[in-house]
């Protein structure tokens, strides 16, 4: 199935693009499995795994959530907006 992946901040820098469409995700895959699939293509992502957050369709999500065709899956580091 096809999912869209969004990357932000340092993750986007590692991958070199902010959006990637993957079309080979097996049905029933979890968000974590999608991340590992992506990390095989971009090994530089692996070191971020521990501190990473995931959102599915713009809602914070668990890593074991199953993704569906057409989902927008975002991986990003802990947030740092605001200031001070």
């Amino acid at each position, binding site marked *: 199935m096809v999912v869209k992946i*969004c990357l*932000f*901040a*340092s993750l986007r*820098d590692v991958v070199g693009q902010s959006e990637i469409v993957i079309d080979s995700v097996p049905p029933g895959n979890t968000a974590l499995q999608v991340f590992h699939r992506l990390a095989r293509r971009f090994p530089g992502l692996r070191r971020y795994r521990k*501190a990473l*957050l995931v*959102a599915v369709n*713009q*809602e*914070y999500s668990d890593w074991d959530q199953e993704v569906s065709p057409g989902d927008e899956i*975002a991986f*990003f*580091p*802990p*947030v*740092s*907006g*605001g*200031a*001070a």
Partner: protein
Amino acid sequence: MIELVTTPIDREQVVRSVASPQAGAVATFDGVVRDHARGKSVTHLYYEAYPEMAKTEMVKIRKQALERWPLHGLAIVHRTGRLEVGESSVFIAVASAHRADAFEACRFVIDTLKTSVPIWKKEHYRDGEVWIEGYGA
């Protein structure tokens, strides 16, 4: 008012948006770019957002605050893109009948925003730059 903007934040406009004849107290918080951080001299910052989700999360925070305190108005504006020292990255204004509610809600909004709204900052120094990621940076 919940907004993500890329131009300077007009504080007076945000304050006016929460005004109400029933409000006796308006508390605001203004997050400003400092000239130093982590022992280094900062030349400017760059803020990046996951825009749709950032807005959704800001709306959620506003809703939570309105449920928890009796408020007459609450606005959150976050700016993204390049910001110079002294410029505002985030501005929050809260209006209530009595001051305790405005203070507490304003504090809640900035504290929650900093852990849940998907916005990241990159600090630029004279000799480099680094993404500041997570853990209440």
